[in-house]
């Protein structure tokens, strides 16, 4: 019976519909799995009682035939999502004990479709990080080669690790500069960041408002399609969400890629790119070519500016978004003899090193006298990067690149700890897409010679997730990547 945690979401739904197991049995299996895998530190809060209550309700729906799209599916929820009556902290000390009285739009979509909440998943503090090491609740261990204690990637590290280790059917993630795609690649699972505006940001603690997007991390492409359908949709409470019909992404699966134009950008093959990554990329290209796609060499000339642009815009917005964490109304408060000192004490104690670093950078680039040189310039470059993609998509329908320049690295890696730039370099293939607001998926393509998963990234046109799903499905079929059992 414990085997049911190995099933994909689609398989699990079938099992539930065919009464092979009940939602309660399923949830119990996952609760056992959560307990057995606590050494991974994927969850920062387990909500077994709540989950069982939801599962019981799902069983009633199955019994009377009113089961909804995700009825009884146990999910892990990234701690960045506000969940009503369930502690939500963004894995920051400054939100100690914060229990929202409201539900994020994305999680309310999922729960309204019958999903079950197993608990809150670990992440980099306020989604700032690429290794899950900035969490106040400690690092997450990548379930691949546990004994090596590798990072799961970040910021949605808990989400990717939990999906890979079968301690949830699937998970929510958020992606600002690669926070869904890079951990998905590190943990050998599949994740998609949809087009900016596809999912509502309401109730998701903001890191960088113009970049943040929610998306699913799941065991395979089909599971992502099922989940994204539920998560997406226009929301009047988020003025940046777009009023566009959500297509049936599952319908794109199994469609032929014959004649599909797949762009391969020269700039993503910089000198020094590992041979292993390059050859898996070539393998992906070859799979699509064999399936009838046309491979087009394209150029995204401003790629090299994406990283510095991102690390100006994201911290600028973050420095302002995080101003509300002042110790006054909720979360951690360290008193002081004056209002200013209370702010200083609370924020000094409440924020971790990486968050402080980004608040400092963001404050600096927005300061009088520096704004034009940094923030304004970065916004102009962002436009150039967007134009690169607009031009590229005149020649092709979808773009294929590696997700990350490396596989998972050890927790506490010295070079990254000593120089944060080395950590930020992990985002080199993912940030352009975020700056352009485009949809992109990471899916596993194979294992490194060390036996660690590597991912490829498929980038689509604005609001064209369907083409990504179509191409991803073909790659997945041929790559035959074996998930962790």
């Amino acid at each position, binding site marked *: 019976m414990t085997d049911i945690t190995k099933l994909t979401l689609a398989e699990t739904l079938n099992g539930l519909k065919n009464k092979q197991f009940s939602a309660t049995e399923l949830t119990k299996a996952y609760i056992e799995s959560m307990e057995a895998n606590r050494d991974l530190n994927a969850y920062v809060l387990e909500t077994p009682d709540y989950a069982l209550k939801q599962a019981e309700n799902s069983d009633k729906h199955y019994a009377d035939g009113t089961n909804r799209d995700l009825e009884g599916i146990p999910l892990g929820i990234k701690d960045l*999502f*506000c969940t009503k009556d369930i502690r*939500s902290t*963004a894995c920051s000390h400054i*939100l100690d004990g*914060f229990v*929202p*009285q*409201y539900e*994020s739009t994305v999680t309310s979509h999922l729960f309204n479709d019958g999903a079950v909440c197993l608990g809150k998943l670990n992440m980099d503090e306020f989604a700032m990080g690429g290794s899950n090491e900035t969490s106040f609740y400690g690092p997450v261990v990548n379930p691949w080669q546990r004994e090596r204690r590798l990072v799961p990637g970040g910021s949605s590290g808990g989400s990717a690790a939990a999906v890979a280790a079968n301690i949830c059917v699937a998970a929510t993630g958020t992606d600002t500069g690669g926070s869904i795609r890079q951990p998905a690649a590190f943990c050998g699972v599949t994740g998609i960041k949809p087009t900016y505006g596809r999912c509502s*940001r*309401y*109730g*998701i*603690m*903001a890191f*960088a*408002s*113009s970049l943040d997007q929610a998306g699913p991390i799941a065991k395979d492409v089909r599971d992502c399609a099922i989940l994204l359908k539920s998560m997406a949709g226009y929301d*009047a*409470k*988020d*003025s*940046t969400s777009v009023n566009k019909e959500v297509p049936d992404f599952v319908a794109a699966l199994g469609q032929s890629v014959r004649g599909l134009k797949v762009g391969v950008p020269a700039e993503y093959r910089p000198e020094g790119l590992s041979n292993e990554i390059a050859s898996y990329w070539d393998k992906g290209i070859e799979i699509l070519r064999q399936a009838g796609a046309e491979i087009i060499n394209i150029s995204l000339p401003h790629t090299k500016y994406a990283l510095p642009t991102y690390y100006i815009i994201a911290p*600028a*917005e973050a*420095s*302002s978004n*995080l*101003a*509300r*964490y*002042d110790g*006054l*109304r*909720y979360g951690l408060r360290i008193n002081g003899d004056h*209002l*200013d000192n209370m*702010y200083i004490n609370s924020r000094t104690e409440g924020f971790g090193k990486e968050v402080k670093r980004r608040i400092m950078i963001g*404050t600096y680039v*927005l*300061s*009088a006298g520096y*704004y034009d040189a940094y*923030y304004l310039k970065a916004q102009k470059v962002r436009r150039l990067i967007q134009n690169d993609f607009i031009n590229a998509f005149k020649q092709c329908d979808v773009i294929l690149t590696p997700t990350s320049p490396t596989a998972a690295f050890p927790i506490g890696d010295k070079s990254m700890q000593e120089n944060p730039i080395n950590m930020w370099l992990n985002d080199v293939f993912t940030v352009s897409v975020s700056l352009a607001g485009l949809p992109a998926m990471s899916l596993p393509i194979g294992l490194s010679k060390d036996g660690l998963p590597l991912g490829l990234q498929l980038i689509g046109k604005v609001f064209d997730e369907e083409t990504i799903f179509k191409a991803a499905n073909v790659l997945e079929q041929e790559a035959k990547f074996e998930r962790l059992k």
Partner: protein
Amino acid sequence: MLLEGKTGKWEIVCGLEIHCQIISKSKIFSSASTHFGSDTNQNVSFVDAGMPGMLPTLNEECVRQAVKTGLGLRAKINKYSEFSRKNYFYADLPQGYQITQFRYPIVGEGVVTIDLDDGSTKDIRIERMHIEQDAGKSIHDMSPVKSFIDLNRAGVGLMEIVTKPDFSAPEEAGAFLKKLRSILRYLGTCDGNMNEGSMRCDVNVSVRPEGSTEYRTRCEMKNVNSVKFVMQAIENEARRHIEVYENGGTIEQETRQFDPVSGQTKVMRKKEFAHDYRYFPEPDLPPLVLSDEFINEIKQNLPELPDAKKARFMETMGLTKYDATIICENKEVAEFFEQAAKVHDGKKVANWLMGDFFAMLNRKNLTIENSPISAENLGKLVELIETNVISGKVAKDVFEIMSETGDNPEKIVEEKGLKQVTDTAAIEAIVDAVIANNPENVAAYRNGKVNLRGWFVGQVLKESKGKANPQIVNELLNKKL
């Protein structure tokens, strides 16, 4: 206006920034109520409280009100505007930033014509107007060691109107504030109550020697909360500048606070401690783009504004400039007047309105909205006089009764039997009787004591209980004396 200094004459250079609370049911970026006078922290949504993950959504009604106001200021409506964040930490600013408009405001340059006491007018240029959210309130006087925060006001929509430095006398600023308040109330976009804080004024002042065109360093006084205080603040601050300059000193750019008790200003924040607000475009809100249809619809439904109404009352209703200015300052008064003067002589209605009627409201401490005398009834009263049904003297008594009972004057006149006697034969009988009963006075009058004339009129009116038509009385007396 020029101020006399030791070294010569000085000219005041002053500009105003006025924050006007937008009249709207809900706040500018949330659905919480804007109701004034609710218990503390009752009108607060998760957005207003700056809860994690909350996002602003723009209230279209506030945009409509802003466009309306812009049109009322004869200003350019910008079809493209943007919201920005103004970042600073304060306990009553839950998000840690104020959502405002910075580089691209919704309203551009405009003009307001002010009326000065000497009957002249002056155009004050508007630099811009933008919309933004208000902060909450910090309450420091409830406890010696704690401060309390009320977020009812946090997120209420504001319009910030910035003028050019066009004021050269305190009276001009006073006249501007009155005119602005009048326009806003006509439009229904702000109630203009400075004492309730729904209109707040920042005053920028500098001085320069007479005839000079330079701009010297200015000082800003924040939140001066009455027209009188604004005028005081300008004059006293200008005098301070003059004194400093004449003693060889320099004025530093700083923010000052006006003390209503002493009438003086004192320094609040030096320039070097000025905040760096780190403005940047608000990423949670897309740019605000207005369509021509949206603007035109508002334009077409714009009410008649004080200046236009004034001109019309002068042209078509026979009012003097002075009467029209006073009557049109307040929209309710103007509407009351127009209603009362619908079918009657405008000038006479205006006289009653600005005389007995305003005196009655003052005495009873009432506003025109809850006047016991309706506009229709005031009009009827004037009509009764015009058509000789009652005399002006009786009208005063009828007015008194109306102010107590609110009754229709026709009914009062009917019930109390106050109708003027216009029957010549009946009056002639009284005249004859008065002449017959006072032979000495008749003789004295005929011998040249003409000032006895009024006495005869009085006697006849007295005998008729005030109802005899004075014109007929006069005619008969002319004939018989």
